[in-house]
């Protein structure tokens, strides 16, 4: 019997598991590889929930198109619109499916799914399971994958590290090389398609809200093998995290969604117990500055406001570190326990204080990588995606696909809360039929029957890298300390506020660290469960992505979503004189149109192996469905600008020619 084709999925978070289970249903044999047992993947950390339009929001005027609109608006229009549209329309069935799989979503008294409101929307779209939505969703998929494993359709390789894709002479991906973290065996895995689902890269910033395996190593290895990387500089900083020595633990947005209020004492460093500070001496700065959205402004805005209240205005609640209050104490305990139990336990567990009694102290932390491997799609005439098309989720390396947080496709310049779990499950389910179809008509034979030389030499390359590291003399650089230094530089220069001089300096420092990382010496040179060498490799592979983030940020001279450079901010209107104000608004809109002409582009990074650095180019964004419009949250003069903008849109709607804000490219 001829060998059957196989698909290798690297990563068993929501995206990888969804793809594995869907492929198994389509009778495709799957290998599933992960650094950790898949049930322990980073997706378990997600707390808040997952978005979709639902019967209730529909009756309040919501629909898929509005979910789509909120997503691209929240992303500052940097996403190609067809994939986002497709995702929004898939969201209700995705949640139905997860419901059928047994996810213990919270219920209404009548037994329907309960919903909450998340930032960046006015509708209650978010389904949730206590405060452990990610864990519950992941377990449901993990269980289905286990079912297929028992049926013999899926093989798991847990505690394996993906080292490199294997490319044949034509540059098509034919499998991957990986290393067993226990025995340290390095092996080639022939595969007809490889799907990367390896999540985010928060560890490049040292500490973040992400899990310890989120180093971006697998993505970096594909990047160094030639895959394009998109929008690297867009890194979401979550407004509310609990600062800790080993990790910055997230305080979910749902704390604000359920009525949490952010404030600082009006008096700097007021040393009174927060509960003793009367209302009128509290500065609820989000509510005052953004009356419509209040505490639920989108993440980038909340982050910047908290940052500036502490850093610029000196109103931190703590004299020796930066923090603001996130206050839930006005909400009844029983309600808090029911809706937020899990996340409040985290605070209590790691801070030793009960947030039901005492306002929490929080500060922003790196949280999500909007950037990731560039992937393709095939558009339908009405702006959706062609189902089962081979181009959907395909990276620039033929045969290599990417899904979940490690692709760049769905969140543009900023991700809306509770949209990521959706994009992970959606992209996992959506990629499967295209792969299954292609396996039916594979040209050039099944990978496992290709000449062994291809796989041998790929394996040997990795064995050499490994052996070389182990054979280093002592006295070299310490990888753990270098990681700390990298994290400090990245956090200081490439998070909430960015300045060109600091970015340029950071690039020099990171290049120097990269060279020092080449000289790492190991404190463990053994060949059994050597975590030291595994970490060192992942550290070395952080540099290409770190450079992608820094160079992308340095070159992008504008503000967009999570990328904020004060020097290039379009200032609010200053004049009180109506005519002058109007003129300023016109200018503002001109500047906005010009900014989009120049910068409404995906940043595309390619690895330059000779220089061991990156090359950057730009691609047009498909904004053909929803024309980009300014985000005017809290800007002085927003109404006047809005007015000018609307007039111009109307003028443009007259059929003659191209005008301001028209789609940039296809």
């Amino acid at each position: 019997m001829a060998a059957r084709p196989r698909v290798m999925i690297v990563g068993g978070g929501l995206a990888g598991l969804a793809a594995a289970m869907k492929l198994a249903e389509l009778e495709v044999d799957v290998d599933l590889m992960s650094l950790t047992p898949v049930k322990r993947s980073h997706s378990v950390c997600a707390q808040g929930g997952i978005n979709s339009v639902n019967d209730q929001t529909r009756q309040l005027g919501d629909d898929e198109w509005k979910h789509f609109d909120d997503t691209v608006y929240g992303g500052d229009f940097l996403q190609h619109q067809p994939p986002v549209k497709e995702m929004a329309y898939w969201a209700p069935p995705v949640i139905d499916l997860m419901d059928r799989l047994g996810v213990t979503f919270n219920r209404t008294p009548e037994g329907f799914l309960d919903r909450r409101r998340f930032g960046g929307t006015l509708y209650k779209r978010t389904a949730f399971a206590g405060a452990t939505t990610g864990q519950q969703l992941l377990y449901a998929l993990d269980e289905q994958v286990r079912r297929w494993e028992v049926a013999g359709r899926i093989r798991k390789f847990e505690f394996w590290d993906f080292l490199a894709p294997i490319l044949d002479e034509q540059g098509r991906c034919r499998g991957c090389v990986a290393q067993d973290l226990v025995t340290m065996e390095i092996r080639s895995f022939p595969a007809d398609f490889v799907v990367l689902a390896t999540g985010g890269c928060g560890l490049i910033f040292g500490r973040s809200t992400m899990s310890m395996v989120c180093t971006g190593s697998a993505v970096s290895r594909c990047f160094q093998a030639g895959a394009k990387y998109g929008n690297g500089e867009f890194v979401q900083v979550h407004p509310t995290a609990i600062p800790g020595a080993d990790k910055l633990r997230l305080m979910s947005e749902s704390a604000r969604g359920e009525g949490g209020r952010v404030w600082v004492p009006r008096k700097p460093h007021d040393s009174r117990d927060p509960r003793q500070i009367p209302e009128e001496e509290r500065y609820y700065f989000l509510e005052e500055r953004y009356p419509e959205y209040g505490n639920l402004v989108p993440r980038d805005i909340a982050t910047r406001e908290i940052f500036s209240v502490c850093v610029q205005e000196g109103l931190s609640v703590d004299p020796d570190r930066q923090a603001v209050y996130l206050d839930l104490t006005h909400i009844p305990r029983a309600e808090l326990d029911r809706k937020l139990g899990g996340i409040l336990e985290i605070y209590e567990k790691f801070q030793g204080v009960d947030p039901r009694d005492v306002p929490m102290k929080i500060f922003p932390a790196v949280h999500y990588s909007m950037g990731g491997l560039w992937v393709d799609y095939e558009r339908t005439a009405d702006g959706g995606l062609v189902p089962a098309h081979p181009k959907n989720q395909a990276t620039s390396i033929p045969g290599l696909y990417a899904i979940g947080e490690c692709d760049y496709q769905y969140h543009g310049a900023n991700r809306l809360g509770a949209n990521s779990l959706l994009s992970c499950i959606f992209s996992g389910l959506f990629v499967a039929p295209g792969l299954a179809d292609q396996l039916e008509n594979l040209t050039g034979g099944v990978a496992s029957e290709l000449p062994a030389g291809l796989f041998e030499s790929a394996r040997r390359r990795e064995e050499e890298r490994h052996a070389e590291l182990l054979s280093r003399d002592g006295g070299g650089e310490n990888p753990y300390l270098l990681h700390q230094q990298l994290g400090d530089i990245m956090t200081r220069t490439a998070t909430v506020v960015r300045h060109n001089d600091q970015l340029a300096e950071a690039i020099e420092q990171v290049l120097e660290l990269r060279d020092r990382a080449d000289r790492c010496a190991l404190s463990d040179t053994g060949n059994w469960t050597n975590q030291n060498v595994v970490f060192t490799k992942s550290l070395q592979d952080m540099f290409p992505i770190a450079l992608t983030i820094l160079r992308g940020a340095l070159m992008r001279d504008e503000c967009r979503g999570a990328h904020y450079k004060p020097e290039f901010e379009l200032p609010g209107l200053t004049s009180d004189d109506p005519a002058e104000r109007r003129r300023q608004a016109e200018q503002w809109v001109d500047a906005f149109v010009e900014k989009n002409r120049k910068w409404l582009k995906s940043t595309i990074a390619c690895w330059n192996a000779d220089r061991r650095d990156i090359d950057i180019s730009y691609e047009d964004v498909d904004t053909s469905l929803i024309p980009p419009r300014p985000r005017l949250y809290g800007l002085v003069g927003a109404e006047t600008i809005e007015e000018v903008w609307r007039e111009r849109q109307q003028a443009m709607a007259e059929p003659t020619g191209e005008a301001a804000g028209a789609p940039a490219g296809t």
Partner: protein
Amino acid sequence: MAEPQSKPASIDSFEVRILRQEAPGRASYWERHRVDYEPQMNVISVLQKIAAKATTIDGRSVTPVAWDCNCLEEICGACTMVINGRVRQACSALVDNLLQQEDPNEIRLEPMSKFPVVRDLMVDRSRLFRALEKARAWVPVDGYYELGPGPRVSPEVQEQAYPLSKCMSCGCCLEACPQYTKVELTRLSGETDEEFQQRKRATYDQSFIGAHAISQIMLFNMHPTGKHEAAARLDQLTAPGGIQICGNAQNCVAVCPKEIPLTTSIARAGRATTAHVIKKWFDR
């Protein structure tokens, strides 16, 4: 509620004693490290410091200690180990509490004893995942096409199911259980990977399935669709390694970090299996 933390009186460093083992089948030994005190450390940050320094208390260079972790939020279950004699997650074990409430002088770290040691504090918990296969711990849906929403569930049922579904397969309940004994196999010469895995699974299946899987069985037997396979799951509970082994010592429920009502699950499973056996007997 945990006490607000404060620095234990006049401490600027403390000792950590770790039970190390280089590989399966090798002898284990204690190793002592001294770690500088910092406020708000947990055992993970202690291990990170030890890894970065890789030097013992008497100045000897050693290999870094191997341990497992991922989320650092006590939600993935990876970092489970025995800390000062008690099985728990290293990420949520705060140094201040350990020094103040347990032993002011040192912190002792050991691998779980019911699972084979891979290296140092890392153990092989594959038996625990095998038990989930045996338990058929999944909802047997028709497939993943669009088939509308799931069954309507009352909040009462959700509130009963949700705690059980928070089980993170950490294994604390198994470590504490007197009836759960270690199964450690070594690969025979000439045995292939697959054959070895096969033999492992078969041996695991004969041994006690454990509280965590029993509780999962009750979770899926409660679900409106999961119920359809209830009988097959109860069969597993009456098979060798099933619920009859449980001596009702109740240690499991006391150590579960997620406060899962394991003994309630076990009691319900006991009643369900009895009814199931009688029914089968009558149906013969």
